[in-house]
């Protein structure tokens, strides 16, 4: 059995082994193996290629841009996605614009341990994918399975553009698979995580599992809900979403991020624009509540969408 977190570690080990241009840079990633142990043993297995950085997110990303210019393929670990804000400028204005401005490629992978866990509070729980997605020049991956964590991270390192790899902390230990995948969908393709005919839930990352649990619950009542796992939110696989809505006529977009804008707005807006006639009833969104992410598990459990609230939203949608 291999966990989501181990898959991330294995993908990095393979990337380092396969390509001498790859190195890892981040706080505590060397001997210590990172705050979450995602780089455990890599420093000793690949001497000189897994380096501790100072607590300097701006310089960490800026240096990765320079290294990319010179032909390297850096992996930058940000300790928590929330701490990417001091590096925000280098991500959105330097890495994201380099190729367009200079025609020099910028193959950087920035790993962002994302999303909430019980007790992690306002500054260790954020889901920033929708914020970054607004910027041209970035690719944003949001793996929901152990297999995707592995194969998409390998793909991220291989892609010639800056990739934000939003790995979900809640899935790190919770999610296990039999082994590493041997084949995978390419980046840019969404996956039908569960087939259904009555409604489509579009979700990504940890929310895929809440959606699957909700679908299971509704299945007991005779409803078959289709769950689309976006896998990457930029690019966003509109075709797969539209095809699903064409089958079901009903859409619920679920995201763990805040309600204004973000993935659920983009999904609903695209379906409304491009698949209006496919919709039998108004599309719906379910997001986190519009406050910072609370510390106490009681509050946190209400703040984020969960299987019960997804199921409730689906019942409403199915009743329409």
């Amino acid at each position, binding site marked *: 059995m291999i966990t989501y977190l181990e898959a991330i570690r294995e993908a990095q080990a393979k990337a380092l082994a396969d390509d001498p241009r790859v190195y890892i840079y981040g706080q505590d990633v060397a001997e210590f193996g990172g705050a979450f142990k995602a780089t455990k043993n890599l420093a000793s297995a690949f001497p000189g290629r897994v380096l501790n950085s100072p607590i300097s997110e701006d310089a960490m990303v800026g240096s990765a841009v320079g290294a990319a210019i010179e032909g390297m393929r850096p992996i930058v670990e940000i300790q928590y996605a929330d701490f990417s804000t001091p590096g925000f400028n280098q991500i959105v204005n330097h890495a994201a614009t380099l190729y367009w401005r200079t025609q020099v490629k910028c193959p950087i992978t920035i790993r962002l341990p994302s999303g909430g866990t*019980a007790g992690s509070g306002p500054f260790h729980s954020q889901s920033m994918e929708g914020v970054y997605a607004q910027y041209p020049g970035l690719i944003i991956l949001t793996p929901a399975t152990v297999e995707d964590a592995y194969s998409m991270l390998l793909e991220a390192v291989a892609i010639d553009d800056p990739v934000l790899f939003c790995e979900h902390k809640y899935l790190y230990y919770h999610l296990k698979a039999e082994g590493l995948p041997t084949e995978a969908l390419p980046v840019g393709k969404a996956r039908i995580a569960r087939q259904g005919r009555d409604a489509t839930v579009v979700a990504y990352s940890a929310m895929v599992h809440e959606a699957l649990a909700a679908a299971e619950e509704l299945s007991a009542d005779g409803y078959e809900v289709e769950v689309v796992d976006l896998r990457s939110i930029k690019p966003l696989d509109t075709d797969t979403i539209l095809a699903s809505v064409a089958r079901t006529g009903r859409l619920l977009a679920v995201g763990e991020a805040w309600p204004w804008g973000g993935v659920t707005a983009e999904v609903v807006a695209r379906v409304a624009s491009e698949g209006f006639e496919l919709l039998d009833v108004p599309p719906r969104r379910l997001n986190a509540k519009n406050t*910072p992410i609370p*510390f106490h598990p009681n509050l946190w459990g209400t703040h984020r969408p969960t299987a019960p609230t997804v199921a409730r939203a689906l019942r409403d949608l199915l009743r329409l």
Partner: protein
Amino acid sequence: MLLARLLEEKLANLYRAGKINGGVFLGKGQEALSASLGMALKKGDIFAPLIRDQAGRLAFGEDILDAVRTYLGSKLGPMRGREGNVHRGLPREGRYAMISHLGAMISAVCGGLMARRFQGQTGVVGATCVGDGCSSTGAFHEALNLAAVEKLPLVLVVANNQFAYSTPNDREFACKNLVDRAIGYGIEGHTVDATELDACLDVVGRAVERAREGRGPQMVVATLLRLAGHGEHDDAAYIPEALKNSPTGRDCLKVAECTLMERGWASAADLEAWREETLQQVEEAVATVQREPAPDPAEETWCALSTQELDDTFRA
């Protein structure tokens, strides 16, 4: 100091017993430094403590219940369960509530001091503590430079506890002593061996005094060792034995107790009695808080704005 230590030991026990959500971060070994700062500050001053400042918080007037309630997520705590562990404060009483992003609180204290100046208040000091690792952040730099330009009565205590999480000093900075940074900001810098309470009281006390007298920002760089993991989840196996056994690795609390006894100011029996008394206080606080209600999602406004009518609510 003693209260801080025993309180944190209790919190660590609760953590190990699975009674605390999220992390527990100890200031073990940093109590002398932190307490010295809290004691040097006066009511009306501003203090933005960081993760290892339980002692300073208490010395500056934090109720022990504030800490316990925040760690245990009591609805009655200052953060009402919205925030946990070290992320607490009562800004109206001069105790700013830290955000996690390292370095971010320094400029907030600067702004607080600018406000006091606008308001015509004099003799106010603003203080905050950071670690060696925080010195690498852009926020640290921008704020210290701003303080220097504005000649603000800021006291910045840098607790060089040799590690930023697992990262040793040599991967964090390359100057001999972080106090050398003071020169580049054009502010006064001081160093102190933070295993010695006397020295801390003296150096930190003087730094606060100087700031209060209008000599501009003061930077105190303290040398010590973190005598715990980064958080209680961390066994800190990366800290070399030699360092633990070096003078830097001494426990400021034990050193202080020895000094008290050497000077004849307290006997072993006195110390034991204090400890008992303090432990009692801690146990009572925890017992009280454990009976308190957890926050109730139904009672939350789920609104981040104070101007609730401008909240962007969603009907769908």
